[in-house]
């Protein structure tokens, strides 16, 4: 059989999902014909990606690019593979190369946009959106306009986003995702009543959609229409499992919820999809929830056990971080100190959950280097809603162990900066006129009304004001530090 015929057969196998057979033939071609090397390495990379072997995928596709650097689709696929193995800077470089070679699809630009945000590079994300504004092809496609509108919303361009979204709706009035985005924009401007209307329009177009119902619940909650908000949360919540909080096990009890079996099955299906894509941590989270929802159906439990066995674990628990309004910043640190002190059993997998709007994106990036961390608004808020009522009563009983863990000589900080981050930080210090090699400094923070105004705009500006203080009351202390040769840096997000 000729090489081209073999390639044709391999592609047929590949397209029909017979991945192992396709891979075997691709490998024969690779060995026999160096001239087809780029195409074959790329195909082997795609197969590895489909099988969830993302490191292998990245290696194979990189070999394809070594053979032929001019194919944008190679760089596109490499970027996706690198994203899965959390090599975000390299994923961005590959994506930028793809765009330089002419890749302009909206889905890919959206991917690059997400990478910029994940890497804490909002300036590049904004620049990307600005470059897209002149793209006529996007303007002509309602779905593409909807996506550009979403990206504009995220970078804070509410007017541009609205323009795109209404433009998309002019062509496709039933584009539910555009209504959803408009609801989120209304939320940003503090107009929760308008956002509820938008979500309802979206629901009328799309039918029951958990994310829409959930966002509607959040808006109603902010409007203090608590019972309606709870009804929304009940409709989409699917939690009955355990979580760890401040080091303790807390059962999340949603037993009063009427959750239909279709909901549980849809959670399970999401888990299967995550497993097929090699996203094991996400699969564990979803299977864990599915098995809690379907206690009489053994499939959820079997799914969970299968993935846990592959990870060398037997049990799973969930832990929360980075609540956007309360910044539970140290939960993972408390956990890591327990690990250091041998308090976490080897067979236990702890999955950390975060929303997409954490109090600090850098901490998310740093913790992701240390922990299995899943970022998913829906899982996060659903489980947090279940957790909060029992939180305060439990926390008080646990302080003693926490203090002991921090004071223990074997307990030490686990977060660290990469050499690239160190350089970035040192440059940042120099911008503040602090010599990183010679100067010492003290960070000073006073919570004030700016915090609650920022988080509860339109609702209240007086949430727990007794915790506030006036930064000016630090003036004598600041003078003392300066007199001793130090520098004082006032810190804080949302201070006045």
């Amino acid at each position, binding site marked *: 059989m000729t090489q081209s015929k073999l390639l044709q057969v391999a592609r047929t196998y590949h397209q029909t999902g017979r991945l192992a057979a396709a891979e075997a033939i691709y490998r024969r071609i690779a060995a026999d014909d160096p001239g087809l090397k780029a195409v074959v390495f790329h195909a082997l990379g795609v197969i590895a990606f489909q099988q969830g072997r993302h490191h292998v995928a990245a290696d194979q596709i990189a070999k394809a690019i070594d053979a032929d650097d001019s194919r944008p689709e190679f760089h596109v696929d490499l970027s996706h593979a690198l994203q899965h193995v959390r090599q975000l800077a390299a994923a961005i470089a590959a994506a930028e190369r793809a765009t330089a070679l002419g890749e302009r699809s909206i889905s890919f630009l959206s991917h690059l946009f997400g990478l910029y945000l994940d890497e*804490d590079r909002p300036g590049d994300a904004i620049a990307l959106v600005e470059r897209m504004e002149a793209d006529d092809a996007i303007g002509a496609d309602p779905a593409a306009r909807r996506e550009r509108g979403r990206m504009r919303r995220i970078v804070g361009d509410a007017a541009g986003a609205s323009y795109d979204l209404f433009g998309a709706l002019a062509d496709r009035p039933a584009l539910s995702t555009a209504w959803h985005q408009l609801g989120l924009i209304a939320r940003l401007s503090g107009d929760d009543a308008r956002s509820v209307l938008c979500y309802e329009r979206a629901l009328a177009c799309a039918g029951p959609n958990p994310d829409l119902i959930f966002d509607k619940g959040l808006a109603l909650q902010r409007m203090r229409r608590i019972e309606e908000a709870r009804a929304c949360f009940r409709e989409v919540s699917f939690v009955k499992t355990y979580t760890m909080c401040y080091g303790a096990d807390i059962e999340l009890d949603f037993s009063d919820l009427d959750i239909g079996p279709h909901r549980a099955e849809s959670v399970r299906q999401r888990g299967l999809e995550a497993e097929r894509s090699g996203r094991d941590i996400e699969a564990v989270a979803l299977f864990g929830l599915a098995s809690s929802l379907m206690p009489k159906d053994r499939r959820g439990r079997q799914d969970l056990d299968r993935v846990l066995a592959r990870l060398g674990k037997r049990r799973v628990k969930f832990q929360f971080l980075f609540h956007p309004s*309360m*910044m*539970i*910043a*140290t939960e993972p640190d408390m956990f890591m100190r327990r690990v250091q002190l041998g308090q976490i059993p080897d067979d236990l997998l702890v999955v950390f959950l975060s929303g997409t709007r954490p*109090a*600090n*994106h*850098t901490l998310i990036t740093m913790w992701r280097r240390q922990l299995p961390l899943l970022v998913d608004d829906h899982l996060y808020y659903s489980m947090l809603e279940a957790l909060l009522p029992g939180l*305060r009563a439990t*926390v*008080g009983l646990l*302080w*003693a162990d*926490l*203090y*002991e*863990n*921090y*004071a223990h000589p074997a307990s030490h900080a686990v*977060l660290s*900066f990469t050499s690239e*981050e160190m350089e970035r*930080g040192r440059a*940042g*210090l120099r*911008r*503040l*006129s*602090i010599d990183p090699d010679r100067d*010492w400094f*003290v*960070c*000073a*923070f*006073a919570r004030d009304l700016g*915090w609650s105004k920022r988080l509860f705009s339109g609702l209240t500006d*007086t949430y*727990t*004001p*007794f*915790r*506030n203080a*006036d930064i000016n*009351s*630090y*003036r*004598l*202390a600041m003078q*003392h530090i300066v007199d*001793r040769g*130090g*520098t*004082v*840096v*006032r*810190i*804080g997000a949302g*201070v006045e």
Partner: protein
Amino acid sequence: MVHPKVIDYAMTAREDFMDIFLVAHCRFVMGTPAGITDCGKLFDRPCLFVNSVFIGHCPPGKQALHVPKRLVRRTTGEPVPIDEYLGHFRDAADPVAEVFTDGGLARNDYAYVDNSPEEILEATKEMIDMIEGRWGKDPADQELLERYFALFGSIPHTQAGSSARVRQPMALSHLRRYRSWYFPEG
């Protein structure tokens, strides 16, 4: 405070990355208890918690010192007796709610009084002493601290008690200044 060595980074140059980098590389963090102040302990940086509430509570950390706000009656400004304060932790179903929520404070006619600039200065000096290994060496101070730990020993929500095994100290300057409130028996 306007001074070239006092930098209002929060109002002029704040970004997520530098928030964390600064806290990780400072000599110590001083601030009201909050997420960003807590981040100091992620990097085992010393932390001075000023204007902390509720009384007796100091977040955990390798080197931590705290100065609480004072608790007074909202309507009269009179100090709330220590026995009444500790009584919430003996008797209330949710003692933290009594002294750490807007509703609880209103219900009990309580208000917290912020630390004065002088109190914060004294605590800052103590923090520097602690970092440089000079803090708490005086036997009289040790005795005062032991009394403080014993006083709060029955409160599981704080670190002060002996049951916690690890005892996070309050600023000695604060204990000395308000000794008669903490120890009315003398």
